[in-house]
């Protein structure tokens, strides 16, 4: 059996190209070098699978690629890791949210962690909304103390009778809180997996 797999069947060639176009699309968040390496490795895998059968018609190509799996699923951890690492170094929220979303549905622990992080970012968004909205709804945003002694920090619809304690100070306070939360969450996310695994390895070394 030859070491080289040649797809002479046009249908097999189409199925192959379609699959790897899909891989390329899902791997678009990786660097060009990482993406090229990943594709080469997956192509080698699929070729090895075909070589084991000794056939390269469209049906066998389909089987080999089906066994390799759906790139949207098996590439998910790689892409999530890459996006979160990038978000950690650039503080860019777009790869961060995408990376966290990709983590949901993997393991229970990872999903819980990603949901907690997303909750933190939602809180951050509320702080930003407070800072931006104070000028438009000054009577509904801030730190309110109600006649019955209860308090509210944030955005409230029914603040009648309550005394606003912070005034315009709520804008810089909300912005500072949002900034601190953002830097903290993003840095923690970028370091989390690395630290957890380093701790495990240190434990195993003893």
């Amino acid at each position, binding site marked *: 059996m*030859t*070491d*080289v797999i040649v797809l002479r069947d046009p249908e097999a060639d189409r199925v192959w190209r379609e699959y790897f176009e899909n891989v390329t699309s899902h791997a678009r968040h990786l660097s060009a070098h990482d993406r090229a*390496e*990943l594709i*080469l*490795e*997956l192509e*080698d*895998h699929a*070729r*090895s*699978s075909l070589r*084991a059968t000794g056939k390269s018609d469209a049906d066998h190509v389909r089987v080999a690629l089906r*066994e*390799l*799996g*759906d*790139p949207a*699923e*098996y*590439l*998910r*951890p*790689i892409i999530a*890791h890459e996006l979160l690492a990038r978000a950690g170094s650039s503080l860019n929220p777009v790869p961060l949210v995408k990376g966290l979303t990709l983590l949901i549905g993997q393991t229970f622990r990872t999903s819980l962690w990603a949901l907690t992080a997303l909750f933190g970012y939602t809180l951050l968004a509320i702080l930003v909304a407070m800072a931006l909205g104070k000028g438009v709804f000054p009577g509904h945003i801030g730190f309110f103390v109600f006649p019955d002694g209860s308090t509210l920090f944030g955005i409230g619809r029914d603040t009648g009778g309550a005394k606003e304690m912070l005034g315009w100070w709520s804008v810089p306070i909300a912005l500072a809180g949002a900034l601190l939360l953002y830097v903290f969450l993003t840095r923690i996310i970028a370091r989390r997996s*690395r630290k957890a*695994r380093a701790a495990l*390895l240190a434990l*195993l*070394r003893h």
Partner: protein
Amino acid sequence: MRDCATSVSDVPFIPMTSSSGAAVVARWAIQLHKGVFEFMVLLLLRERPSYGYELMTQLRDALATDTAEGTIYPLLRRLRDDGLVTSKWTEQSSGMPRKYYEITPLGRVVVQQMGDMWLETSNRISRLANRKRAKVNP
């Protein structure tokens, strides 16, 4: 691994009459396989350097699992990031490149520790499983 799977399927007192029971076992088996993949890959690489397809073929043979073969690549990447394996591209006789993975000294230490934990855990589980079986079938 096989001993463990065999002992579960041999248990005669579990009435597997509902499809939900079978689904629970199937789900558990998937989680179990996922949990030992990392350990098994290191065990295989301890024997000799290997590449993704070869590793996955051996895993599938050993575990009789139908896990998507592509899942090995995130795992290998994670092991590499942790310093447990290294990788290098090698040109085959056909001229096509192939990525080989090799275990590092740290990887050898880790797989040894994992092996000890595995033996201890499987012994404990076996003792528990045999105790339960003895009570039901005196």
